[in-house]
């Protein structure tokens, strides 16, 4: 049984005052996330990532389609006991201290007394806010609020954790901590579904990804499935050459100047890179490196987003009229 499953999930918002038109924020999203996966939900800003998470949390209701989490329908209270959610750019009651906020949320899960206090204390230490636990949230920076947000999402030891842009507002150290946290959650066998537009996060963390653009699922699968392992060419870096290597060489696709006397030569995959490097090294320079060129996640992302560009997100009126809850 998938941890998260959506089938043809769609959401229209009405836009316009006098003649409201349905704006399709999410279109027929069908995907399944297996237990124990770290699933990256990628897309540019406005792609429908947050709408998907809000649909899964029942903060908005679908226009059509269905979804389930841990085999239970959305909104099911028993299911909600087993999940955690970090909203995008979270905001919490600023009159509470970090300790009070987590205690309040822990209370909603039924934790009481010393168990609740111990849980709150452990989580605040884990996210690096142990020293600030008695400080009102109004005094917290954006990064600290994000850390509180992560702590509250984990207050119930959830089996499935939804993180909407978890790296947002964090400094490099904070991002490193969150990456380590997500990997720890994965090692504990939990399912993590996180949205991001930062591709390096997905590359380092995810077992599978999905790319959405303009409300549509453009691709999904493992990184290996999506990013072809086929060799696209070679990158040869030469330094100290007296003149630019000839781009007209039959084995060379492109030559890029990096610095004075330093060039990146992109060679065809059929070339022998060492032989080519020796040939080009004859110009008086030395060989710095030879690297294989493969398709990257960024290539795939840009390709899918470009493909989605130019498509209309306003649903035809007839189609929109049939929407239900």
């Amino acid at each position, binding site marked *: 049984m998938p941890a998260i499953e959506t089938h043809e999930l769609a959401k229209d918002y009405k836009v316009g005052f006098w003649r409201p038109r349905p704006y399709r924020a999410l279109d027929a999203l069908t995907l399944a996330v297996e237990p124990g996966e770290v699933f990256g939900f990628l897309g540019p800003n406005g792609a429908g990532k947050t709408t998907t998470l809000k649909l899964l949390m029942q903060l*908005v209701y679908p226009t059509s389609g269905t979804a389930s989490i841990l085999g239970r329908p959305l909104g099911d*209270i028993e299911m909600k*006991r087993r999940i955690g959610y970090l*909203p995008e750019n979270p905001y919490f009651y600023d009159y509470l201290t970090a300790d009070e906020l987590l205690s*309040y949320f822990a209370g909603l899960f039924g934790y009481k007394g010393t168990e609740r206090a111990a849980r709150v204390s452990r989580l605040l230490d884990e996210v690096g806010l142990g020293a600030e636990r008695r400080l009102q949230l109004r005094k917290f920076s954006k990064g600290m609020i994000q850390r509180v947000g992560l702590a*509250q999402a984990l207050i119930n030891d959830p089996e499935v954790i939804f993180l909407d842009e978890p790296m947002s507002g964090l400094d490099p150290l904070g991002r490193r901590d969150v990456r380590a946290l997500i990997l720890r959650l994965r090692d504990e066998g939990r399912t993590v579904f996180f949205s991001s537009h930062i591709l390096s996060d997905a590359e380092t963390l995810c077992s599978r990804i999905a790319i959405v653009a303009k409300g549509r699922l453009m691709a999904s699968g493992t990184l290996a499935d999506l990013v072809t392992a086929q060799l696209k060419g070679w990158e040869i870096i030469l330094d100290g050459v007296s003149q630019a290597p000839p781009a007209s060489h039959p084995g060379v696709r492109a030559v890029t100047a990096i610095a004075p006397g330093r060039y990146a030569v992109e060679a065809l995959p059929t070339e022998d890179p060492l032989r080519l490097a020796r040939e080009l090294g004859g110009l008086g320079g030395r060989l710095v490196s030879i690297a294989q060129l493969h398709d990257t996640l960024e290539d795939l992302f840009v390709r899918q987003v470009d493909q989605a560009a130019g498509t209309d997100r306003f649903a035809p009126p007839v189609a929109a009229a049939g929407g239900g809850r």
Partner: protein
Amino acid sequence: MSGRVSVPTVLRIAANVFKESVRDKVLYAIVLFAVIIIAASLLLGQLTAGQEVKIIKDLGLAAISLFGHFIAIFIGIGLVSKEVERRSIYALLAKPMSRAEFVLGKFLGLLSTLSVNVVVMTVALVVVLGVYGATQPAEIKATWEAPSVDPALGVAAFLILAELAVVTAIALCFSTFTSPVLASAFSVGLVIAGHFSADLKNFEQVIDNKVAAGLARGLYYVLPNLAPFDVKSQVVHALPITPLYVALTTGYGVLYVGALLTLAVLFFSRRDFK
């Protein structure tokens, strides 16, 4: 899913609302201002020879009611709208709770805050009346229709609180589906109408048009009838307020609050948080 109601969850949400209001300086300012007005009634009473106690009671109860209305409407509307605007509701609704529990918790939280405030303001009024009574000679006291510190004041304060429960439910109900500005306007309008809705009952005696009279009678049944909660004149003139009257008025308030909260839950359960 919206219909599930767990009492501990509702109480936890209510406790958080109470904590928020305890830390809200605006609320302290309102209550302090009300206490000052009540104390000032002591001075105003001096202007009316022989009517001092009546004036203090009348002004004091009016202040409790008026400032209670301020708190009920403006904080009542903020209960939901602030959570939605600031998006603090996102993390909250992902917890194991229903939207019905959220609405009921918010209502109970503000009602408990209002209860404390009404008690504080009533105690201030009783202290003012007690001090005034203690300073008057026996022959003056003998002319009063009721003692300065009269148990009827407690009954009046209780009915004010019952009225504030209805007003809070009105504000909460509007805030579940419209903007804070519109919710404030609608709530103030409905509360004012509620104080005069009894006039609609006998509209046919004023107007000949049967349709208009029927419409007025229909409105009478739909609009809240808040006039019965106001027993200032009975307290001031030492007229009896029977337990049956208090019970019926409270019962009406409970029913009206129940209807409003049901509507609030229905509206709120269907709402998208974009």
